[in-house]
Each structure stands twice: as structure tokens, then as C-alpha cells.
């Protein structure tokens, strides 16, 4: 690979752009192809489906075999709540390959002292701020409905591949009532993982972080088809 291509590739990855590296396996120079330029590329027929699926692979062409390496942006994890569990979850999720963002409007919690150089937003989690999509997991950890509920609603509406909410069954029952009130049906509400995390008996904050991250990875790897985005249907007047 040419150093200039590697630098461009790393820059594209840092900016969450989808790109392919096309490498002839005979030692001749390769090239970088942006997803936006795939249609006009000589290998368009191969690149199109591979950009869509994210699958890298070897391809036989008229001029010999080439390897197509697809680089898609990492899945994102947005954590609502700059709490103790998050201090363990953020580095673990980063190590597992997630782009982590932490959101908490409570400035006493959302401090650089507690979160170092993680992407930390000391603001209310409204839909515009969160900019969620189906490649994003959302975990709400504040225990405060004022902060958690708007993020859960935004996550359901954006079709996030994982939505998890901290809180006991009792807490969740009250949350379900509020979401029904807001117009979400049972199917949408059923997509919320609550109580959050795989049931491994986690007790300490770092253990809860393991349970949450494991559940997110399960959703990412086993539930690859993201659920359809749902919209709250405002209850029509009877």
C-alpha cells in the first residue's frame, strides 16, 4: 500500500466515511475508493454490493486477482448518564470497537476529571443532539426519567439496533406506562432491554458494564437486521 493511501484511509475512517481499499495481489499498486465513487469505478459491480454488505473479499478480474477491503464506520454507543457504570462501560466499549459518546446534562457528573478524553456532552439528550441511527446502540443509565425517557424515545424512533434502560422491573413498569402514554405500542416497547444487561448476576459497576456490553454485542452480532424505526402514534381521540 502507498503511504499516501494509508493516510487518506485513516483520515476517512476517523471521519466515519465508508471507503474500500482495492489491492491487486500481484504486487502492483492498489487504490482507495470512496463509497460515493463506487458507481463510476471499473469494479462497480463488485464494489456496490460489498459496500452495502460491508463484506471484504478476493475478486478475480481480467487483470488478475484483487482484494477488496471494505472499511465501514464502527458501530456507535451512546450512553445516557455520566455515572459510575459508565466510567467502566466507556473504556470497555471502546476496546470492543465502539465509538462511544456520553451524554448527561448534570454538570456535576459530566466532568472531564471523571471521563478523560471520552466524547462527553453535558447537555439534554434530545434527538437533534443525539443524531442516532440504526448503527447506534443506546444505553440509558441515569435512573432519572426526565433524562432517560427522551433518549429512549429518540432511540426507538431512530431504529437503534439496541436500546437498554437501567432500572428495576418496577421502574420499568412505570416507564412502560409513560411510553404507552406517549403513543408507543407493545412491539416498540418490547424492543427495550430492561432490566438492562445479560443476567449474569452483575453487582459492582464494572460487572454491570460487562453485562450491558455483552448484551449490546449480542444485539450487534446476532440481531443484525435492525428493527424498523417506529414512530409514536399519538393516541387519536376516541
Amino acid at each position, binding site marked *: *500500500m*502507498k*503511504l*499516501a493511501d*494509508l*493516510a487518506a*484511509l*485513516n483520515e476517512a*475512517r476517523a471521519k466515519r466515511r465508508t471507503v474500500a481499499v482495492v*489491492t491487486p*495481489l500481484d*504486487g502492483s*499498486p492498489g487504490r482507495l475508493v470512496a463509497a460515493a465513487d463506487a458507481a463510476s469505478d471499473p469494479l462497480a459491480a463488485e464494489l456496490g454490493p460489498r459496500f452495502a454488505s460491508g*463484506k*471484504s*473479499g*478476493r475478486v478475480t478480474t481480467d487483470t488478475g486477482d484483487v*482484494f477488496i*477491503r*471494505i472499511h465501514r464506520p464502527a458501530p456507535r454507543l451512546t450512553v445516557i448518564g455520566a455515572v459510575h457504570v459508565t466510567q467502566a462501560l*466507556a*473504556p*470497555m*466499549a*471502546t*476496546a*470492543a*470497537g465502539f465509538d*462511544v459518546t456520553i451524554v448527561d446534562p448534570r454538570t456535576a457528573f459530566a466532568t472531564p476529571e471523571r471521563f*478523560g*478524553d*471520552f466524547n462527553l456532552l453535558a447537555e439534554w439528550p434530545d434527538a437533534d443532539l443525539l443524531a442516532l441511527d440504526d448503527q447506534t446502540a443506546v444505553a440509558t443509565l441515569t435512573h432519572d426519567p426526565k433524562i432517560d425517557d427522551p433518549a429512549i424515545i429518540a432511540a426507538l424512533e431512530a431504529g437503534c439496533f439496541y436500546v437498554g434502560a437501567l432500572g428495576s422491573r418496577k421502574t420499568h413498569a412505570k416507564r412502560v406506562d409513560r411510553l404507552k402514554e406517549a403513543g408507543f405500542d407493545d412491539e416498540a416497547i418490547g424492543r427495550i432491554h430492561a432490566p438492562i444487561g445479560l443476567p449474569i448476576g452483575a453487582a459492582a459497576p464494572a460487572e454491570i458494564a460487562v453485562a450491558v456490553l455483552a448484551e449490546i454485542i449480542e444485539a450487534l452480532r446476532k440481531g443484525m437486521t435492525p428493527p424498523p424505526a417506529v414512530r409514536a402514534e399519538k393516541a387519536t381521540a376516541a
Partner: protein
Amino acid sequence: MTGLAMAGEDPLDVAERWRAEGRKVALATVVDTWGSAPRPVGSHLVIDGEGAFEGSVSGGCVEGAVVAEAVDIAAGAPARLLEFGIADETAWEVGLSCGGTIRIYVEPLDGEADA
């Protein structure tokens, strides 16, 4: 970043940094797998001229052999396609215990680093 120390830095970022430091670098990429293979197609291992490496192309089964080839390629030998597997006679030395076969392309990182 805080969390990356646990999992190791991204190998492609490491490769760029090593070149900027003036090191010779080779890039190894898994281009084919058959059967049970420990790392998926597209996995990267980067190697410098001294044999230091970051990333992985197997679960540790064949890294040693890849690094040995890559040191020569970083130093100027041509790119090479390596194959490892249970059917290969080198399997007895550095094969995949899981019984799969993998092909790994090892290429030099060409071009001058910017100042």
C-alpha cells in the same frame, strides 16, 4: 484514547505512525479463509523492520511465520501471498490448530513519510 490501551491500538493507525517515525513497515491482510479460521477476512497485522507488530491475522497460530516474512518485505522484498493450513506441510510447524486454511497477503508500505 483511554480505552484503546486495553485492546491495542488500531494497526492501520500504528502503521502510519511508524512510517512517520521513519520505520520500514509491511502490512499483512487476511484475504481468504476456508473452514474454521480464527480471524475474519480483512484482518490486519502490521510489522516493522525490527519484527515489532500490532494487530492479528490469526489467534496467534501463524503470526510468527508472517512476521518473519514481513520483515524481509518491509526491507524491500516483493509482496507475497502466504497460505497456511492443515493441508500445508508447514502446518506441522505453524499451522492452524483449528483446522482451517487462510491466505495472507503481505505487502510493503511504500512512499516517503511527510516531515
